[in-house]
């Protein structure tokens, strides 16, 4: 009993770690899409940010500078996306695909040119990473039944970015639902013409949203290469950007349900690793691939309207043409 309890805690602990980049990226996508700009490029921004973080941290030995570089690079790509889709009214999906392809190529080309390790960055020492923070008295309280292990295994012992991701959700909720910017953001995603009539710049709002998206993707990327791992590895995002996109849609473009979706998807991934080759009583062995595909299958089923209705912002994907 005690063993399976610990196993559950460890799985939940892994869930949190796997879900962190998803949470950042899902909140990022939420800002962008709520303003009416589709963002397929979460993946690319995250990847470029992961590279920037690891490269700068490797050179300077500072995780903080790495984080700043990650955010800068990711926001630069976000600006490029904005320049293409908002300024030049280009196709938002095409621009996102371009950013993804560009990032997957550029990170490796620059990585090989700068570090000569086949596209990887040098392994980072702990001093150049975001290392786990052990909360006060974690070991002392371990003896307390039930709550002790929860405190020690689940709450304590993550790096600062994990907590930042969890804090990003209420913050996103507050900004989107309780501030003037948020109100305008939601309005511009539903009816840009109305926002324009009110004398507010559609372009300005959308650029603001896209930049917020870049900031959060930068955090996600930095977490991958300097928090979760200790180096940049080629294509290390491995579809996490798309999965975050799915989680955001699964959460129906709202922060709290999106968080729940991220945790669910993270849990599935953590479970998939544990269930490899294990036969469950009554079910037999569940193919790992099925569990890994489940987030995508669930999202398709949701989009098909079989689990409630997921309604996208009305003006999503449509460039705004100001009437002259």
């Amino acid at each position, binding site marked *: 009993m005690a063993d399976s309890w610990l196993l559950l805690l460890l799985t939940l602990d892994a869930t949190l770690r796997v879900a962190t980049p998803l949470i950042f990226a899902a909140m990022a996508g939420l800002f962008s899409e709520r303003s009416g700009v589709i963002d397929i490029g979460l993946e690319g921004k995250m990847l470029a940010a992961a590279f920037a973080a690891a490269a700068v941290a490797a050179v300077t030995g500072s995780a903080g500078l790495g984080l700043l570089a990650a955010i800068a690079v990711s926001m630069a790509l976000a600006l490029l996306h904005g320049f293409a889709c908002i300024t030049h009214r280009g196709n938002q999906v095409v621009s996102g695909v371009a950013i993804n392809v*560009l990032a997957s190529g550029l990170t490796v080309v620059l990585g090989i040119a700068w570090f000569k390790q086949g596209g990887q960055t040098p392994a980072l020492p702990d001093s150049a990473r975001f290392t786990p923070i052990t909360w006060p008295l974690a070991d002392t309280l371990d003896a307390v039944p039930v709550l002790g292990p929860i405190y020690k295994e689940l709450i304590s012992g993550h790096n600062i970015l994990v907590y930042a991701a969890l804090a990003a959700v209420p913050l996103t909720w507050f900004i989107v639902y309780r501030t003037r910017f948020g109100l305008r953001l939601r309005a511009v995603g539903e009816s840009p013409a109305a926002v324009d009539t009110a004398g507010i710049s559609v372009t300005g709002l959308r650029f603001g949203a896209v930049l917020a998206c870049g900031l959060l993707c930068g955090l996600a990327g930095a977490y991958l290469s300097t928090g979760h791992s200790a180096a940049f590895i080629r294509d290390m995002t491995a579809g996490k950007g798309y999965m975050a996109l799915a989680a955001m849609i699964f959460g129906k473009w709202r922060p709290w349900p999106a968080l729940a979706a991220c945790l669910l998807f993270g849990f599935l991934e953590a479970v998939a690793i544990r269930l490899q080759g294990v036969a469950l009583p009554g079910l037999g062995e569940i193919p790992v691939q099925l569990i890994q595909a489940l987030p995508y299958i669930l*999202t398709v089923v949701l989009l098909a309207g079989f689990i409630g209705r997921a309604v996208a912002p009305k003006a999503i994907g449509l460039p705004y043409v100001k009437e002259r």
Partner: protein
Amino acid sequence: MTAPGEVPRWVDIGLIPLINITAAFLVSGLVILAIGENPIEALTVMLRGAFGYQEGLGYTLYYTTNFIFTGLAVAVAFHAGLFNIGGEGQAYIGGLGVGLVCLAFDGALPFALVLPIAVLGGAAFGGAWAVVPAYLQAYRGSHIVITTIMFNFIASALMVYLLVNVLIQPGQMSPESREFVEDVWLPFMHEMLGWVGIEVTRSPLNASFLFALICCGLVWAFIWRTGWGYAIRATGHNESAAVYAGIDPKRIIVLSMCLSGGLAGLVGLNEIMGVQHRLLLNFTAGYGFTGIAVALMGRNHPVGIVLASLLFGALYQGGAELDFEFATITRDLVLVIQGLVILFSGALAYMFNPIMARWFQRPAPSPEATE
């Protein structure tokens, strides 16, 4: 007479795409400069690798074949106003279809029978993988971009499952099926040319290249010379107007995606039946995504797609050559170029339009002149 903001046709279909591509290559050149190499030298190596000798040319055309199929796939969907980002998954599942046909019938049926069944199998599997997102878009309103992305991941998980657990050749470690009997392999180009007495170096180029060219002709005829093609273009231009023309856009969405997925599925013909001769993992290697760049660059027209496919085929083959010649440039550079091409000829396609419009707009005839 061109309206304000418009440009003459030759500028629109000739000059602007050329400027966009040039911009993409200029930025790529800057990237090469930034990592301390010589862009001209890199370009020379790529060109020589892609066209300089027979084997290189063979490889170039072999890559071209894949890009023609995926480029056509994206283009057909574009004509209906749909963005099929799932070419990768459809090609993967299409290859499964081709492979299953070969595994089922090799040694039992003659090549002349297996070939049409394999073509149908590949197209049917690829098409089927596109039909679900198409149906959901048409009848349930789910966004096709998202669903096709999801289907890429589902396809990849499915293929891993099938190859690891079901199709794997017993007694071996790597997840691959058994090799097909040699009778059902598509003939290589060097073999076919050998039959008529022309000696060329061995390369993976095979008969599917010719089939890809035929498909270009078929797609052109279908899109521009048939009622269905007209319905697809009408839906793509203006869905509500299409309704008044008696077209059912829902059915057109499903039809065009079916066709699109089928074309993507034919990648399997080249890769599985032509080159690998067995089912294996990740044989699509990003060809589906490159199809997006190809279609954008080729302006969704078969002729443009062939040219764009040739360019990307040369980039892929020339890029492989970079690995040997340079210490610091690898074939990943091709991804950078590809990304920039998508950016400039896709997302920023209209960036240069206002400038061009200013340059090429003929001054409106003044009243005195017309009198």
